[in-house]
């Protein structure tokens, strides 16, 4: 490789790694702002601001969903297996919403640290399987569940 080319190679490497380092440090500094949602543990610790719009993500606790018979009001608990948050929502839930499903809710924390949600989105995991396989896994109790760290990065 002649010196000219070598020099240009170093410039190219400098661009790639220089920009990489700069962007990497910026992202690291901003990482809390890049997270789409707060986990129940962060909310329990008081890291999430109150009385402002935030998102919270977690798993819907089995047996915690209480639907009002007269209206669309629904209340459920959301957990990352360490802490949980109660969510109140008035509206239509996504099709994938069910107990044991990961969700992301947008809303405000009230004085009791409960989330008054205005939007609920379903967060599905990376596991896909045919219904028969899912039935078999369910019966054997081996259904893959999202891990706590899915909501706590």
């Amino acid at each position, binding site marked *: *490789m*002649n010196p000219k*080319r070598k020099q*240009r*190679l170093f*410039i*190219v490497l400098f*661009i*790639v790694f220089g*920009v*990489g380092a700069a*962007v*990497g440090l910026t*992202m690291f500094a901003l*990482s809390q702002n*890049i*997270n*789409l*949602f707060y*986990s129940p543990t962060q909310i329990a610790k008081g890291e999430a601001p109150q009385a402002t719009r935030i998102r919270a*993500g977690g798993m819907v606790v089995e047996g915690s969903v209480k639907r009002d018979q007269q209206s669309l009001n629904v209340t459920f608990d959301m957990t990352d297996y360490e802490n949980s948050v109660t969510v109140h929502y008035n509206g239509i*839930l*996504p*099709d*994938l919403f069910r107990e044991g499903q990961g969700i*992301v809710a947008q809303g405000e924390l009230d004085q009791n640290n409960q989330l008054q949600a205005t*939007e*609920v*989105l*379903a*967060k*599905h*995991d*990376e*596991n*896909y*399987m*045919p*219904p*028969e*396989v*899912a*039935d078999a896994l369910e019966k054997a109790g081996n259904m*893959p569940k999202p891990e706590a760290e*899915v*909501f*706590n*990065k």
Partner: protein
Amino acid sequence: MSENKKWMPRWFYQLASPRWSYEIMGKLLPGFAVAATLLLIGGIIWALAFAPEDYQQGNSFRIIYIHVPSAILAQSCYMLMAVAGAIGLIWKMKVADMVAKSCAPIGASIAILALATGAIWGKPTWGSWWVWDARLTSMLILLFLYLGVIALHSAIESEATAAQSSAVLALVGLVNIPIIKYSVDWWNTLHQPATFTLTERPAMPAEMWVPLLIMVIGFYCFFAVSLMMRTRNEILHRERRSSWVRELIEKR
């Protein structure tokens, strides 16, 4: 000089010749075209008619067979564009510049396809067309980078300057590729993590991932076909004054 030649394989230096590249691409084209047609048609039929439906999402999950290949290809195409741009910068190889230029519009269309299928998939499953999470946003930035490269190429009249500046933009934007890839691991996102990893078994059974793999290979073959067609056009256009192109046109 003879010492320099050993630094890279022979075909690398042959690629520097527009005529040689034009001819070798012409020979490779039919094979890739046949492979792309067979793989895409076979893959689509398998994916839509024979692959099992998902236990949670039912049939709407089948859009994965377009969404995942296009998302993978949009990133691979960007990497190729950046590497070709770097080769053009370092070795001043015209053909590499032409490859980089031809990558941009193809990559932009594929990125749009990935974003559109993602939005169509997101509405029924998540409940929202679009969320500003790290994965979706970084993918949108990838599309903007492609558009930036296309804009630079058409804004600068001198072909050499246009190639240089868009190669620099492509190299700067290269930092986005690992961000797209690892966004779902680094931050809390609505987008689920990768189903396929190099280290673990795929998080879906074989009757689902085999057609997906066929679609991915089919997308790559289709990309090879369209890239070679575009590059051949670009070679003819830029070498229009050379004698071999004139002869080629007169023979038609």
